[in-house]
């Protein structure tokens, strides 16, 4: 096993026991990037010099710290990639768009600060659909990212580069954002684990805003345990983000159980309709059978307003996008507005329209009211079950170019993921198998602030199936 193929947990152990150094580990990741990024296009910026510098520093620290002290820096010497929406001080941050192609932030996003404080080595900025607008990675102004399992196919988006960099072992974890599924979909399409935390659980400060009431700051990892580890570091109230509540954070990695006996898992019928690819339906139902085998109870439930979620999302999200993109006027930083790509322009126009006088009540306000109904669907469901399992995508990964000329078709790939963002609840996506050689994922949804439970439920399935041990064949 090459060093870059390790999980965070495995790398931690290796570094702690001085089996290898951070420099060796980082070099292994950088080599992988050098070899495969030209074809996969997962990175916009690779921080080779600074990463090695940080790795060297980490090695010195590792040598000087006691085991106890070492445990205070859970990511010491571990190479992490950052989605290019995360502001990194003095390192170019483009949002995947030509508008910011040369923008260098003067400050770090709060999550970046936290990961660095935990000792992480920042290996680079990953590619994405520009501004987070997309479900395939094809909307990047810097070329599409390819799925490492079959490079003719999309890796899912908008955190496409993050999904691929983890799946292709170019790093041990990558940050992502999830506004309508942007961390869960690439996780599902790349055979990795993707977390969308509860809205407000993780500070958004420094992460370029897409839709402020829907954006959730997540991450992609190889295993569920790694995901819990990162969540432990990024979550918590922050004085720089007024939407982070003062809610106690449990230690999600301590005592990560695999016990699901007695747990009630909901299967919502609205997610298993004709719209769902039959093979994905099979895999998902198999996953549920597995949970039954492990002692959980599968409960049929209904989330009656599911069909309104996507239209609702595509009214609220572009509205907030149109406002959040207004600052990119080219006066203080960045290039001018004519550099916006087609999808960005599309959403700006849609959003401006739905907020304008005479249309606000019929669109934005109405959509916000429907949103409350969707939220209530989940609240009612969670009175009956502990968690809900659904597919992440109605279809397997599609071919690059297949949906790009049909924006509406592209929007429909979000039908199962937008519900969690509208309701503000957390979702954990993890692998459940393959269709035609391409990864498929399921998502576990829980009530607000139930991430610990999601990790446990996910961990149980993962330990039973070990899909994460499968790696894509890269030439």
């Amino acid at each position, binding site marked *: 096993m090459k060093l870059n193929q390790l999980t965070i947990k495995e790398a931690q152990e290796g570094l702690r026991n001085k089996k290898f150094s951070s420099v060796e580990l980082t070099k292994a990741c950088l080599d992988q990037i050098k070899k495969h990024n030209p074809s996969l296009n997962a990175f916009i910026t690779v921080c080779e010099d600074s990463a090695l510098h940080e790795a060297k520093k980490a090695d010195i620290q590792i040598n000087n710290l006691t085991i106890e002290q070492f445990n205070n820096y859970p990511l010491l010497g571990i190479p992490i990639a950052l989605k290019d929406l995360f502001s990194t001080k003095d390192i170019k941050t483009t949002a995947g768009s030509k508008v910011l192609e040369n923008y260098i932030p003067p400050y770090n996003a709060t999550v970046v600060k936290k990961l660095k404080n935990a000792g992480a080595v920042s290996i680079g900025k990953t590619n994405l659909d520009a501004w987070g607008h997309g479900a395939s990675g094809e909307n990047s102004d810097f070329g599409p990212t390819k799925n490492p399992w079959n490079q003719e196919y999309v890796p899912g988006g908008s955190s496409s580069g993050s999904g691929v960099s983890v799946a292709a072992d170019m790093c041990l974890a990558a940050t992502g954002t999830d506004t309508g599924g942007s961390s869960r979909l690439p996780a599902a399409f790349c055979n990795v684990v993707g977390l969308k935390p509860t809205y407000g659980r993780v500070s958004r400060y420094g992460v370029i805003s897409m839709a402020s009431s829907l954006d959730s700051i997540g991450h992609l990892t190889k295993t569920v345990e790694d995901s819990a580890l990162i969540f432990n570091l990024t979550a918590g109230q922050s004085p720089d983000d*007024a939407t982070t509540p003062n809610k106690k954070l449990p230690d999600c990695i301590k005592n990560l159980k695999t016990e699901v006996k007695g747990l009630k898992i909901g299967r919502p019928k609205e997610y298993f309709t004709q719209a769902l690819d039959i093979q994905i339906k099979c895999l998902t139902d198999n996953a549920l059978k597995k949970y039954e085998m492990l002692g959980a109870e599968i409960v049929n439930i209904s989330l009656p307003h599911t069909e309104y979620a996507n239209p609702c999302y595509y009214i609220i999200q572009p509205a907030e996008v149109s406002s959040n993109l207004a600052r990119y006027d080219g006066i203080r930083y960045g290039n001018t507005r004519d550099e916006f790509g087609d999808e960005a322009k599309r959403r700006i126009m849609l959003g401006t329209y739905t907020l304008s006088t005479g249309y606000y009540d019929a669109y934005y306000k109405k959509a916000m009211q429907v949103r409350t109904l969707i939220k209530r669907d989940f609240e009612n469901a969670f009175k009956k079950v502990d968690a809900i399992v659904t597919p992440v995508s109605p279809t397997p990964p599609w071919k690059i170019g297949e949906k790009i000329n049909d924006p509406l078709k592209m929007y429909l790939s979000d039908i199962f993921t937008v519900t969690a963002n509208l309701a503000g609840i957390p979702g954990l996506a993890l692998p459940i198998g393959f269709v035609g050689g391409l990864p498929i994922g399921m998502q576990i949804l829980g009530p607000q602030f139930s991430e610990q439970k999601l990790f446990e439920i996910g961990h149980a399935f993962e330990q039973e199936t070990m899909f994460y041990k499968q790696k894509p064949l890269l030439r």
Partner: protein
Amino acid sequence: MNYKPIIGLEVHVELKTKSKMFCSCKAEYFGEKPNSNTCPVCLGLPGALPVPNKKAIEWCVMIGQALNCKINNFSKFDRKNYFYPDLPKGYQISQYDAPFSHNGYAILGTNEEKTPESKTDSGQSTYRMFTCQARMTAKRVIRIRRVHMEEDTAKLTHIGDNSLIDFNRSGVPLVEIVTEPDFENAKEVVEYLKILQQIVRYLGVSDADMEKGYMRLEPNISLKPVILASEARPESKKDAGQASMTNDLPNYKVEVKNINSFGFVKKAIEYEIKRQEEILKGGKTPIQETRGWDEDKQKTVTQRTKEEANDYRYFPEPDIPPICLSESQISNFKSQMPELPDIKLARFIKEYDLTRYYAEILTREKRKADHFEKIIREANKNNISPKQIANFIVNEKFVNIEGKEFDWTLMSPVNMIKLHLSLNKTTSIDEKALERAIKNVIAENAKAVENFKSGKETALMFLIGQTIRQFKEKIDVKKITEMLKKMLQ
């Protein structure tokens, strides 16, 4: 045809909080090096988020309470979306339909003994009571529509073809106070502004200097035709002698910007009223527009007219959770308010037996009023009345050793009393010397003595005066009077 001005006022007050409205940058920007107090938030950098300033919100509520407003238990911030180089985010965080305070009032004419009674078009029952009271006491009621919180924009400076932007002012807390169109002339507007300025200075929430831009105003001015009885139809001749007005507001209004001093307020409004009157008299309607006051030309000028009215696409600010204020929190803010100027004025008149004139001078600034009361407490120990102290302070010119005038509040109460006593000190005089002096005066002023004996009181005054002149020092007049009277018998 006569026209009556219909004027509404929008006033922006900059709060003197330590930090800006949504970030912890320093709020004080006057005289600072450009772009020296900025951060990702007030620069609108990608990824920055607003976190509201709690103190600013408290102060906004207090201003609302001082203006007799209802305070909302539930309020929120909204985004006002528009593009301008001084607006870094492309939207201003403001309040749209759930402001902190609404439906208040300010009363004018409290400083005049008599003001002509005037009618107000109040259609709201809440204000009928106050309007009635106002009518009874001949005061004018200006209704406050709302008092809300927002953030200031950056400052633009134009030099030749270049425009420079200073973001020090971007994000500074701004309270917006909007009145109903209840003003009828420039004088009322000036009075209202002075009251508002005094209130926010009393509350300690703003220096409200118009010259420094800490208080800005935008009047909305239009004219309404007034039909005189002589021009009215026969049926309405019942209201003989009274003017009747149409109940609708005019179908246009002109906003005036860039008025930077009290002096210009009166000039700008009066110019605008005249300008509109001329247009209306010519049978046309003034264009609905925004005009700017040109200080050099001493007139209002058309600012670049926008093609269409701005659609601000207001929606609730998703980055800031709504603010819920409980009744106890609201009453807590009220209890923290200092005594307001009009209450203090009334109390000074009553408690210290002062004239309105003296009380007004002494309560003009809270700092001076507070110091005055400290002096009063010291004066009580020396049996000096508040009236005497007031008289002393208002009329005396306080100069230091170099002969330069100084602020009397810089004197400690103890020193003030000492000064008062020394200036009014009467030297005790030898009784025998006084007797001798009076004997002289009586001898030398036989006619006056005769006049006094025949009942002329003024003669006594004359004799007292003459006695005083006999001495270099100040003598207790009472003593002189007593002795004189005795010796004249």
